[in-house]
Structures are given as structure tokens and as C-alpha cells.
């Protein structure tokens, strides 16, 4: 067990070094892809808190990505500094996510999926129709990349390091949170809400918190997304994108700390690996998702987990079925 954990740290460190060193030799396109991965991973980590740890399904993560991206676009194109967008978007995400959590107190599972799905569709309609605020279908152009203390991040490589840094800070925060009493309360909520309640966990506040944190991270991902693509329009924040984020979490392994990172990697890079097959990558992805669900609903990380320690756990880790530390 300790040996495995050690190897885990070594692997994580190796990946981090690769993420820092490798892009130096990549073409701008590769750097853009990796930056996109880092941003999407932030949103997926947030969704993993809500779905993987607290067990509350949300089909609205792209809406929060959109709220963050539009906040940044509107503020920075009007001359406000980047950090103000970061603060406002994070706060907005937390608040709206908290409110979206209220239905989760009344209904669960598929009903909750539909409430969040409705919210997603509304958010998209607002992005598209309220042209005075969001630029309508034409979106908002020329979003500047931030500079920190006079250090400009306009170059793709520099901005990639900004995204990577943001991801690392988010990961550190999530790591701390999952190990804190809050994280344990989330897992208790997922495993058995009644028992959690009987043990004195305030399941009401924790359900709302799970949504609020997931949403806030979605918005923060949006804050970094907008300057990355330098252009936002409603077509990046549709229900399909929310489903895409959900698939990232599940494919990687929901409830596994590094699951969403791997899932985001698959979702962002798979289209490039399958580039020669033209439009077929989505077909391959869809088949992959179905096969994975049939044979290992706990995602790629779950598959790995089963292979490494086959006798440790009797049942496979289904989504929302078994606790993870």
C-alpha cells in the first residue's frame, strides 16, 4: 500500500515535470491544446467535487464555464483588471451554484439532472439572446490576456504556464478540501445521506456547498478560458459541452482525485490523435464511453485501480457506490 502510494507520487511528479518541460519544444498548436486541457481540467475537477465526491449529478458545468468566461470578457474588455474578473466570477459561481443546489435538497438523481439541464439551457439562451450584455451570437472579441505585475502573458507558452499554475493551485485546494472534514462530509453524503444525517452531518449545507464549490471552479475555469481563446460566443457553452465535461469526469474516473485530469486529457487530445479519421473521433469517443460503462463504470482510473490491487476491493467502484479516500 505504501509502496503503491510512493509510486503514485513519483508518477505524479513525473507528469508534472513533463507538463512543464514538454511544451518548450511544442508548436503553438500543441501549446494551445495543452492550455485547453488545463482549463477544462479545472472545470472537470470542480464537477468531480459535485459528482464524484458528493454524488450530486450536474449537467450545468458548461453554463458555469460560460458565466466565468463572459464575466471575464465583459470586465477585461472594459478595462477592469483580470483579478477583479477572477474574484467576481468565483463569487458569482459560488452564489449561483449554491442556489442551483436548492432543488437537490428536494429531488435526486434524474430529477436533479433535469433541473440542472434546464438551468444549462436557460443560461445558453441568455448568452445568445441578451445581446446588450453578451454580444449575442457574435460573442465578444479581442479579450486581452492578463499581465501580472507588469509581466505580460500574451505569448501562448507564458499563458500556458498561467493555466497550468491555476490548475495546480486548484488541485492543491481540492486535495486539501477532500481531506478536510468538508470532503469527508461530501463522501458521507454520497454514500448514505440518512446515515450521514444521523451522525450529525448537516446534509443540507453540504449539498449546497458541493454545488457551490463545483460551480465556482467551473467559473474559474471560464475566467482562464476566455483569454485563452481570446473570443467567447454562446456556441462554446451548450448542453453538449456540459455533457462533454460530465463524460470527462466519468471517463477518467469519477470520485478519483486525478480522474478528471485524465478524462480531460482523453477528451481534448483524442480528437487530435484521431485526426486522420476526420469526423469519426466523436464516434470513437461515444463507443469508448459505452464500452467503458459496460465493463468498468468507474472509469479509466477505476480500471487501473482494479489492475493494480485486484484483491483489495471486492466490488468495482461504481459511480456513487463506494467511498474513496
Amino acid at each position, binding site marked *: 500500500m505504501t509502496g503503491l502510494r510512493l509510486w503514485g507520487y513519483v508518477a505524479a511528479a513525473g507528469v508534472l515535470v513533463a507538463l512543464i518541460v514538454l511544451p518548450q519544444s511544442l508548436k503553438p498548436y500543441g501549446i494551445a491544446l495543452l492550455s485547453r486541457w488545463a482549463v477544462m481540467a479545472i472545470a472537470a475537477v470542480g464537477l468531480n467535487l459535485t459528482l464524484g465526491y458528493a454524488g450530486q449529478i450536474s449537467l450545468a458545468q458548461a453554463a458555469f464555464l460560460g458565466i466565468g468566461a463572459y464575466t471575464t470578457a465583459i470586465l477585461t474588455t472594459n478595462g477592469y483588471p483580470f483579478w477583479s474578473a477572477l474574484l467576481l466570477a468565483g463569487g458569482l459561481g459560488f452564489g449561483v451554484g449554491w442556489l442551483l443546489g436548492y432543488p437537490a435538497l428536494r*429531488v435526486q438523481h434524474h*430529477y436533479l439532472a433535469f433541473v440542472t439541464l*434546464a438551468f444549462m439551457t436557460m443560461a445558453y439562451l441568455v448568452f445568445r439572446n441578451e445581446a446588450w450584455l453578451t454580444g449575442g451570437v457574435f460573442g465578444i472579441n479581442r479579450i486581452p490576456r492578463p499581465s501580472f505585475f507588469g509581466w505580460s502573458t500574451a505569448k501562448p507558452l507564458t499563458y500556458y504556464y498561467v493555466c497550468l499554475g491555476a490548475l495546480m493551485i486548484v488541485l492543491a485546494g481540492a486535495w486539501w478540501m477532500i481531506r478536510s472534514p468538508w470532503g469527508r462530509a461530501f463522501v458521507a453524503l454520497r454514500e448514505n445521506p440518512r446515515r450521514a444525517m444521523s451522525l450529525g452531518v448537516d446534509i443540507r449545507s453540504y449539498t449546497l456547498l458541493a454545488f457551490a464549490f463545483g460551480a465556482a471552479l467551473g467559473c474559474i475555469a471560464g475566467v482562464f478560458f476566455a483569454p485563452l481563446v481570446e473570443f467567447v460566443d454562446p456556441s462554446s457553452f451548450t448542453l453538449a459541452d456540459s455533457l462533454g465535461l460530465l463524460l470527462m469526469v466519468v471517463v477518467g474516473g469519477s470520485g478519483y482525485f486525478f480522474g478528471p485530469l485524465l478524462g480531460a486529457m482523453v477528451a481534448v487530445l483524442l480528437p487530435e490523435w484521431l485526426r486522420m479519421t476526420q469526423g469519426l473521433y466523436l464516434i470513437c*469517443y461515444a463507443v*469508448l464511453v459505452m464500452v467503458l460503462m459496460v465493463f468498468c463504470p468507474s472509469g479509466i482510473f477505476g480500471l487501473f485501480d482494479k489492475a493494480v490491487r485486484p484483491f483489495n476491493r471486492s466490488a468495482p467502484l461504481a459511480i456513487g457506490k463506494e467511498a474513496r479516500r
Partner: protein
Amino acid sequence: MAGLLQLLVSGLATGATYALVAIGFTLLWQTSQTINFAQGEFVMVPAFIVLAAMRFLDFSLWPALALGLFCSLLLLGFLFKRLLVDPLLKHGVLPLVIATIGLSILAKEVVKNYYSGEAQRFPALISGDTIPLGGAVLSVQDLINLTVAVAAVALLQLFLARTETGRRMQATAQNRTVAAILGIDVERMILYTFLLNAALVCLAAYLITPVYLATYSIGEGLGLVAFTAAIVGGFNQVRGAIVGGFIVGIAENFTAVYVSTQYRTAVPLLLLVAIILFRPQGLLGRAEERTT
């Protein structure tokens, strides 16, 4: 007044086809806890099978429709249950939801890549024009859709309530264990439900695509509408799905005219959220395990 009548008829016609899709959706949920996120795509697939049969195999309309029905029974009924639902049921609701999301992407992409990404004209079952009625102009297609869909729903109700197989299916839906104890072949009944769903979506496809054109993305809106109708009416009631379908169809048509076309899709969703929050069991549904 004439405009109102016109809207009501077209609302009822769309509502009736929505009801077909929603009934299939609730039937699957009742018998096997399958929330089919690909239900909308299930409507799109038979339409394209028919189009492909006519284009590549030179079938005329009616044989093509028959082939479409056969293929959807096989693909969307039998194979869907055997290959996807059966192995996934033991993992709980969520993995199956994710898998059907995958299935919906697959269906859309296959049609887009191998048939066409453009909207396709779909031949009407019975060609017709419009009928003037007291100042209102009613489209024949709408009237046909309404009649056929209502007839199908009535037949289905008769089947479920009066025939032995139908009653067995209801028993299976209400309580699987007790049904099995009473000697009902539960697995077979579930399979029948899947076949029934395949037939319903196929019928819905044949009714709806002549009006809205066949596109690979037609299922996105339809699936949403089916969920909405099922929830508005009550997830555990076939009658609920029918009422829900009509309510959503009428609400959609009326908001498009009287409120705003921009937010047309939002109205059924607002309805949905309100229903979920204030009456989670639906308008006609029974209260049962909603929240665990």
C-alpha cells in the same frame, strides 16, 4: 379566435407526437429504471433508416417504412436492451445515463457522417394540403398526426389494460418481485416494453419528420421534450406522459406566438423546474421514492 383554434390544433398535433415519445420513455423507466438520454435520437434513427432505404436500396415509401420499423425494433428495442441496458443495470442508474448519452452522440455522428448533415425532406404518409375551417386554416398533416397518435395511444391503453400480456407488463412495471413470484416471465415483459418503445419512437418519427424535416440533430429537442412531458405528467404513469405531451406541445406553440420565439424552448423547461420543485410526483403521478 380563428388563430387560437389554429394554434390549438397544431399544438395538439405536436403534443400528441411528443406524448408518443414520452410514453415510451416512461415505460422504459417503469420496467427497467432506464433513463434513456438517447430517446430523442431514437426518433431520428428510424427516419434516416427509411431515407437510406429509399435512396440506396430504391425502396418505395411503404416498404421502406416497414423496413424502418423492423430495424428500429431490432436496433432500438432488442439490441439496445441486450447490449447496453442488461449489462449496465446492476451498476445503478447513473452509468446507464452516461452510456445513453454516449449512444446519443454515436447515433448523431453516424448519421451526420454517413448520411448527411443537412436537413432532409421526409415524405408525408398521406399527402394533403390545408382545410379552411371557420376562418382558421388547418393543415391536413397536423390533423393526420393528431388522429394517428391519439389512435395509437388509445390502442396502447387498450392493450395494457385489457390483454393478458398488457396486464403482465403492468404488473412487471409496478412490482418486479411480486410479478416474478406470480409466475410472470419478467424478462420477457421487459423485452416487450423495449420493443413497444421502439415501435412508438418509430411511429413518432414517421409523424414528426414530414413536418419538421429529418435532421441528425432533431433528437436533441425531442429528447428534452420527452423528459419534460414525462416529468410534467408524472414519471410513473402512462396517462401522465400523455397529458404531459399535450401540455408541452400546446405551451410551446402558444409561447412562440404570444411570448417570444427567442425563449420558446425555455418555457417547457420553466414548467419542468416548477413541477419538479412543487409537485415532484408530476400532475398525475403517485408519490413514491422520489428523493432517495
